[in-house]
């Protein structure tokens, strides 16, 4: 139990540092920025309560905001993601293996996990970038950025997943 928490806090800190020190500085073609930190939220066990997940997500987002000087933006987006994650998980997981799994290629199957990741990342990017733009007057640019970020983030997540294995 304590080991789980130490493990989780280790991931928490390292993902935040990775995000704020390295990934936030990546703007491929001015559009795509990887938001890898939500990998932390996606990897929670499926039996985690929504409240716990949202609190983790809030503080993670808040820390990233504090480092990147955008208070509230990442926090709002990741709380939203944490809020809908159980629903997404239920949507993409075969019913018989829902109990207490940690989402991964191995536990969910490649296609389910990929869909789960893509939709989650898309939702998070959409919320985050909408808040950042804060207007729909430039909706094409907004959509372009959402798709670009989703693509890059999912790629990074697959890479991390591959390394961890």
């Amino acid at each position, binding site marked *: 139990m304590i080991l789980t928490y130490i493990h989780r806090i280790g991931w928490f800190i390292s993902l935040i540092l990775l995000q704020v020190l390295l990934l936030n500085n990546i703007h491929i073609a001015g559009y795509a920025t990887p938001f890898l930190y939500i990998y932390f939220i996606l990897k929670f066990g499926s039996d985690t*309560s*929504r*409240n716990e997940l*949202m*609190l983790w997500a*809030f503080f993670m*987002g*808040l820390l990233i*905001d504090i480092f990147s000087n*955008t*208070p*509230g*933006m990442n*926090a*709002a987006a990741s*709380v*939203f993601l944490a*809020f809908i994650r159980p629903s997404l998980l239920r949507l993409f997981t075969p019913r018989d293996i829902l109990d207490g799994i940690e989402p991964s290629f191995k536990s969910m199957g490649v296609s389910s996990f990929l869909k789960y990741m893509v939709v989650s990342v898309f939702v998070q990017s959409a919320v985050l970038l909408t*808040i950042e733009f*804060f*207007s729909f007057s430039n909706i094409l640019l907004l959509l372009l950025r959402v798709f670009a970020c989703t693509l890059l983030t999912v790629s990074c997540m697959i890479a991390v997943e591959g390394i961890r294995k």
Partner: protein
Amino acid sequence: MRNLLNFLIKYNYWFLFVLLEVASFVLLFKHNRYQQSVFFTSANVVSGAVYEVSGGITSYFHLKKANQELLDRNMLLEQQLDNLEKALRDHQVDSMAINSIKELPVTEYRLYKARVIKNSINLSDNFITLDKGSSSGIRPEMGVIDGNGVVGIVYETSPSYSVVLSLLNSKSNISCKIVGSQYFGYLKWEHGDSRYAYLKDLPRHAEFNLGDTVVTSGYSSMFPEGIIVGTVDDMTDSNDGLSYLLKVKLSNDFGRLSDVRVIERIGQGEQKVLESKIVR
């Protein structure tokens, strides 16, 4: 109640979600200049519309007060206008007096400026009250004229007021003649229309035309010769057939008298004393 509690417990994550999102957005709007400006701009559009409606409604509640204020203001302005008109009138009277003085022999007559403060035209015997009296040198039996002609004769005076026997009075009796001839009659008002009076006792052999000007004759002790009275409007024979009865259209509009002058003739008293001796 129990169901409600169950419901709340079951969906408690909603509260946390809303709480965290609100916290995030508070932070967002508090610390991000761009989002803040967009948020407050759109918020201002909404609040502006709301305030416009509520302001439109509340302005009706202030109408009574606004009306009151306007009335006060109006009163103030009317007072100022009155004062200005008064000042203007004083100056006009000055210039009028100068013109009249030029016309009158200075040595023989003296003029006093006065203001009509009470006037009537529709009684059978009309009197006019002036704002100057014996303390200003006005005495009974003085003539009163204004820029348009004869007004009447001073009847009674008090220290600061005087009552004038208006031309529109059955007791009024002014010696008049027609310009260009020396024949004279006396002017009497026969009640009724304030614009007309009658010139009586004009000899039948006098020559004149309708429209001729009627002026004071100078034979009375009150008026100098040549003060305008009116114009001949119509002519008939008098009841006894010995003289003409002329209907005279008065040049003065008695309905709007305001500034008049009282004429003092030097030596008037002396003339009166002499005349009264003869009558006795």
